[in-house]
């Protein structure tokens, strides 16, 4: 398990990583232990770089908040990659410098109707954060958020990293069904539920946009590395946008 200090000028000065096998068909490049916007951006940039490198045998490159997973398969004649060969290759690529700040994402506006029936937990979140509901909305909409990963369900995006004031825990008992489009926060992160799913995050609003549609290309509205601006809308606008998509 190589531990590295990267001195390339293209990389953030203190970038360190550790490569570990996850079984015989996946490896995990770990960049840290705690949620941190800089580490998250490094993961996104590394994931983009590894995806662009089109390494033989690699099927999926999956970023998360502090790590990047690389899934691979042996070739048709049983030839590599092996963990040894692939980790060495990746090691060399990363040591060449991770393009700092290049998550490669787009800028996406996500309209959100905050509070009311769309955001049943907004008042509670405001109480827990000891600020007004309007202040919660302001902290959520400014500055823009970044999509650090998708997981849990198809098109289910995790965004952050929000102001320290929004560092509130998940609800003590999860809801059995959260409606599609629900925008929910916990631990300085936001998730947007693409489908009706169980969930324990605090729902502060909802977007009328369709977050996941397998018939669309790409199927997930948000991609890792996208920068998102949450734009407050009224319940009427919510209904109008949702209606226009049907």
């Amino acid at each position, binding site marked *: 398990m190589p531990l590295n200090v990267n001195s390339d000028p293209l990389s953030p000065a203190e970038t360190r990583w550790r490569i*570990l*096998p*996850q*079984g*015989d*068909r*996946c490896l*995990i490049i770990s960049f840290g*232990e*705690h*949620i941190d916007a800089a580490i998250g951006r490094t993961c996104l940039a590394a*994931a983009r770089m590894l995806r662009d490198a089109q390494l033989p045998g690699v*099927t*999926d*490159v*999956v*970023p*998360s*908040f*502090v*790590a990047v*997973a690389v*899934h691979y398969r*042996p*070739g*048709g*004649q*049983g*030839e*590599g990659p*092996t*963990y*040894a060969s692939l980790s060495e290759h990746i090691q060399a690529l990363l040591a060449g410098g991770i393009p700092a700040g290049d998550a490669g994402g787009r800028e996406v506006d996500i309209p959100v109707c905050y509070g009311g029936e769309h955001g049943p937990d907004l008042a509670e979140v405001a109480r827990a954060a000891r600020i007004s509901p309007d202040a919660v909305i302001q902290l959520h909409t400014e500055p823009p958020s970044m999509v650090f*990963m*998708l*997981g*849990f*369900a*198809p*098109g*289910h*995006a*995790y965004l952050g990293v929000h102001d320290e004031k929004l560092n509130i825990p998940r609800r003590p008992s999860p809801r059995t069904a959260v409606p599609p489009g629900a925008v929910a926060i916990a631990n300085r992160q936001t998730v947007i539920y693409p*489908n009706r799913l169980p969930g324990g995050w605090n729902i502060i609003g909802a977007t009328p946009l369709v977050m*996941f549609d*397998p*018939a669309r290309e*790409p*199927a*997930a509205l948000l*991609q*890792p590395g996208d920068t998102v601006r949450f734009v407050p809308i009224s319940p009427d606008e919510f209904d109008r946008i949702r209606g226009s998509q049907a």
Partner: protein
Amino acid sequence: MSMTVIKPGMLSSFQDRGREGYQHQGIPAAGAMDERAHRLANALAGNEGDPATLEITLTGPTLRFDAPACFALAGADLGATLNGQDIPLLRPLIARTGDVLAFGARPAAGVRAYLAVHGGFALTPVMGSETTYLRSGFGGFEGRALAKGDVVPLRRPLAPERDAADLQKALSNVRVYLPAALGNKQREFVRFLPGVHWPEFSQSSRRAFSESDFRISPQSDRMGYRLLGRPLAMNQPRQMLSEAACFGTVQVPSGGEAIILMADRQTTGGYPKIAQIATVDLPALAQSAPGQTLRFQRIELEEAQRLDGERERAFAQLHGALEPLRALLA
């Protein structure tokens, strides 16, 4: 030009090797639980590529061929019959128009059988794959398991003028030698590699995982197998951040009951990972039923990758040897 579902069976869904390249969008790979058997069925049905096969679970469906077709079965022996006559696994077989394929004539040995037809089923790929992801309802046949009355089109049925008896005779004369690496010998142990959090588990938990028996819970499905046995714990439990999970990842939620993630696993998980099942042993696991007892044995990474590569070479070898079979069907 199709196959009609008379009875759907317990859970019959189309699966291929999985939807690769979309996990960063949170889209599970899914795919065949026993990929080995899925590929064998395709090879023996004379398929060049690797189209989706029908994954059949325990209680099989009853299916009527509405066109002549070459098909093959692999994986579990679920007591298959064609027009009431017992039929073997791992052989190319001919069905005539109106023939009925049914299951359950004998007690099941294994859990999942795979039905391949020559040319494949005419399914619409979603994100490059014909695999059904049941939980979100897309891919395969209308994104769901088969239901009574479904009519599933075949991509390339046999030409109606071909003499079925002659063709079956010719196919039966093709020698099929199955390389040992493609067999499904039930082993005493399921081999594993240490998971990324293995060193953080207590010594007694690591010993329990390596040495004691675990039973597959009835709450087990395509998404995961829950294991009943000695509870497992970390030395110092801590909150984990979600990161990628794989087919065969063994994770341990705070209750201490291990879960092996299977084909329909989510792309990411936030529980500590004690182990990872060696890919070469996933097919045997996929054929193990709830209630069955498992024992795990540690294997080195190089050995696991050598066995995985050996299986790929065996498939290449089999594929080469089946050229005469494909020529007969061309």
